[in-house]
Every structure is written in C-alpha cells, then in structure tokens.
C-alpha cells in the first residue's frame, strides 16, 4: 500500500516536471497581456489570432510543411528500400550487420555536429542553403529512422509467404505489392509519421541548411527579437499537431485501422 502511494507521488512529480513547462506555455498563449510573462494578467485568444495572422509564421509553416513532406517521401522510400535490401531475397549477405549499423550511424551523431558537417558537404555538391539542402539534410536522419521502423516490421514478416505467392505463379514484384507491402504497412506508416515530425520541428540541421525560414527557426527568431505571447500560441498549435500525429501513430502501431487491402 505504502509503496503504491510512493509510486503514485513519484509519477505525479515526473509528470509535473515533464508537463509543467508546457502548462506555463499554454497559460502564456492565452494571455491578454503584451509581453511573455507568468502569470498572465488576463485571458484572451488575441495571440492565437495574432499568430495565425502573422505572415512570417504562415510562410514559415508552409515552408516547413513542404520540407517535411519532401523529406518524408525521400526517407520512407529510401528507408524501405534499405530494409528490403537487408532482409529480402539476397539480403542475407555477409557483412549485413555492418551495413545495417552503418545506415543507423547518423542517429548517433548530435544534430549540431551533423549540420556542421552537412553544410560544407551540400555546398561541395553545388547545393546552397535552401529548400533542397534542408530536405536532404532532414532525410539524412529520416532515412535511418525509416529503415529502422520498416526493418522492425519485416521482423514480423514470414518469408514463407513469398514461396506461397511463387507457387501460385505470382511474380516477385506483384507479390511485393499485394502481399509484402500490405503486411509491412504499419511500419511504413509509422516511419512516415516519425520522419514528418522529426523534420517539422527540426532546429539543429535547419540552422545550417535552410535560410532561417522554417517554422521552428522563425519562432526562435521571434523569441529573440520580439517575444510576444504569439510564439506561445503558435507553439500550442504545434503541440496539438504533434499530439494528433502521435495518436495516429499509436493507432497504427496497435494495428487498428490498418491492413484493409483487398486481394
């Protein structure tokens, strides 16, 4: 009994520690005052209207959206390809474990270091900071994430099903499309959601590779120079977006609302 009570108190403290700052940001977002401060002098929605009406925020949100979408497509396609190469068909080659570890390497490098290394690399490849440099930079991290999640899905996949397809005269490509893909779909969908979130709120890489025009960077600049509660309002909206994506991810990983492909 006593230990259960202690555990409860501990969990409450951890939650407070994790969520406390978020609660303060939310409170600030609903402030009626002119400046960021706690507690807010009164409540209003004016900073939400201000954030939504802020052209810089809107442009940055659109830019971040496109960057995240492009990075997601590239990462999921390349990550799935890597997972297929590592597990299917001739995938059981010697040195496979090394190749897999190598693909995962970018995840072990701090974002700032990676950004610092990628900027000269991009320029060497004739790519100036901007949309594509940012997209490819995010993909450098998105690909290993995607490969990891799709590999996890392949771990559940029974290669005997490929033999079943073959025995029916279904060729390898068609079998991949009709049998393999639907069965690893939860992995692909979670890869897409994770990569999207990863890119959408990335600061470390965008700092080097973009022209300072992604949403997280704009919010940072705003905090440095203007610091109205509009930043908090924008953040609250971002949190809601991420939360929505996380809920979707949870559904996918529990396997609900997936696998609905007809023969």
């Amino acid at each position, binding site marked *: 009994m006593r230990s259960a009570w202690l555990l409860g108190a501990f969990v409450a403290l951890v939650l407070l520690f994790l969520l406390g700052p978020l609660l303060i940001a939310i409170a600030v977002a609903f402030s009626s005052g002119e400046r960021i401060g706690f507690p807010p002098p009164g409540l209003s929605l004016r900073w939400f209207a201000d954030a939504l009406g802020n052209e810089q925020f809107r442009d940055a949100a659109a830019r971040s959206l496109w960057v995240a979408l492009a990075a997601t497509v590239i990462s999921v396609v390349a990550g799935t390809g890597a997972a297929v190469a590592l597990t299917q068909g001739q995938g059981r080659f010697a040195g496979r474990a090394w190749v897999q570890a190598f693909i995962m390497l970018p995840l072990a490098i701090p974002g700032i270091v990676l950004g610092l290394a990628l900027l000269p690399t991009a320029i060497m490849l004739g790519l100036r900071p901007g949309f594509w440099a940012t997209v490819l930079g995010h993909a450098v991290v998105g690909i290993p994430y995607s490969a990891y999640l799709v590999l996890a899905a392949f771990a559940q996949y029974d290669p005997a*099903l490929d*033999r079943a397809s073959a*025995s*029916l005269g279904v060729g390898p490509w068609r079998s991949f499309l009709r049998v393999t893909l639907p069965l690893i779909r939860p992995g692909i969908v979670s890869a897409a959601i994770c990569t999207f979130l990863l890119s959408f709120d990335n600061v470390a890489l965008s700092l080097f590779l973009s022209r300072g025009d992604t949403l997280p960077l704009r919010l940072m600049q705003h905090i440095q120079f203007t610091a109205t509660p509009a930043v908090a309002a924008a953040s609250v909206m971002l949190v809601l977006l991420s939360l929505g994506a996380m809920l979707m991810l949870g559904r996918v990983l529990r396997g609900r609302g997936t696998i609905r492909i007809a*023969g």
Partner: protein
Amino acid sequence: MVTPVLVEARGITKRFGPRTVLEDVDLDVHEGETVVIIGASGSGKTTFLRCLNRLETPETGQVRIADVTLGRRSDGRPADERELSQQRRLFGFVFQRFNLFPHLTAMQNVALGPRRVLGVRRAEAEARAVHELTRLGLAEHVGKRPGQLSGGQQQRVAIARALAMDPRVILFDEPTSALDPELVQEVLDAMRALAGEGMTMVVVTHEMRFARSVAHRAVFMADGRIVEQGVPNDLFGAPRDERLRRFLRHLEPHHDR
C-alpha cells in the same frame, strides 16, 4: 499406372553450399496418379518437392510437366522470371504450415492467383474462390481471415487456393503434420476426395493409412536419394532396404491412423 506420364523428373541434384541434399533423383508421375513420399526428417523430401515446381533451382536435372520443361522456353532457351512464374503454376503447392496470406480473407486468398496471374475479372475470380471453398466444405468461412480459422480449415483454404489455379498436379508437403490430431482427418478426407476425382498428386506424408488406402505408389527417400518404391502395401508390408525397415519400425506405432 497405364495413363501417360505427366511429370517427369530426371537426375535432380541439389546442393546447399557444400552439402548435397538431393543426388540424381528420378521420378515419373502418371496422369491421375497419387504418389506418396516418405522418409526421415532431413532426407530431402521438401527440397525435392520444391525442385519439382522450381521454388528451388536444382544444380542439375530436368523437370518436365506435360510438354513443358521447367526453366526452359519451348525453343530450348532459358526462361526468364515471368515465364518461369507461368510454368510454376502448372503445379499447385500445399505447405506444411499453410502459408495463407494473413491480411486477406479466405476468399481473397483463393482469388488472388486467378485475379493477378490468370487475369480473371474480380467478380469471376471471387465466384471461383467461393466455388472452390464450398467444394472443401468452407462455405461459411469465405469472409474470415486465416487467424479466425482452425488449422484444419486453414489447410483446406490452402488446398482451395491451389485448386483455383487449375493446376495439372498438386504437391503436398506434410499437409497434416502441423495440425492438432483431431483436425488431421478433415484434411485427409479432402485429399482423398481429390484423388478420387482423378487429380494427380505427390504427397509427402507419414499418414500410413492414407498412404495405403489412397496412394497408387509409395516412394522412400533417404539421404537425398530414392531408395525404394512400390505399391504401398508391398513397400510397407515387405520392405527390402534396411533403412526403410528401421524407418517403418519407428513410424508405425506413433503414426498409424
């Protein structure tokens, strides 16, 4: 049998790395014949069946079915992957562990081949699937996924899936050995009915009563070779090879059904 030869395997040799798993195996299967293959675990039975429909590629040897040589085009040149897929479907294959597509219903499992390989329209493919499933006593289960079916039902769906491709011969790889004992009979009954309808079948099984009562011929494999073959009652009643005698002694008390 007096019917013509339908499947002719000649000199099949298969290696996995340094190991020779099949060595110079010949087998003829006649039209409408049921051949049972027995042999200890690891003797190469599964590999041999897979060499017949080229799920495995033998190092040497040829398989002919009707007037098709597997892996070769009619002009004698090597077949590409697509042509091989087309040839492969002359054989149906029923796996030990069913290998149904878990994301598809029974009907979709059976309709997949006709739709995607034979190019049959969806409605027609589904009608064919329902027909085959009904024939195997699964009319009430057409809309269920494999996970909702018993092992015996799953294996019957797998048989229906093979039948829907209208194969010339069906290969069964220990179709009942992954089943709970009480589910074995329904699958054997389905196979018995197929044999009765004149389907050509090659069956790896240790169900001796099935072998005695259904098979026209029994083949004993050991160490990657066919060691002895004959009419089941002769082969089981008066085995000549010492390995076969030992095998039968170990088998009969546990497996006779």
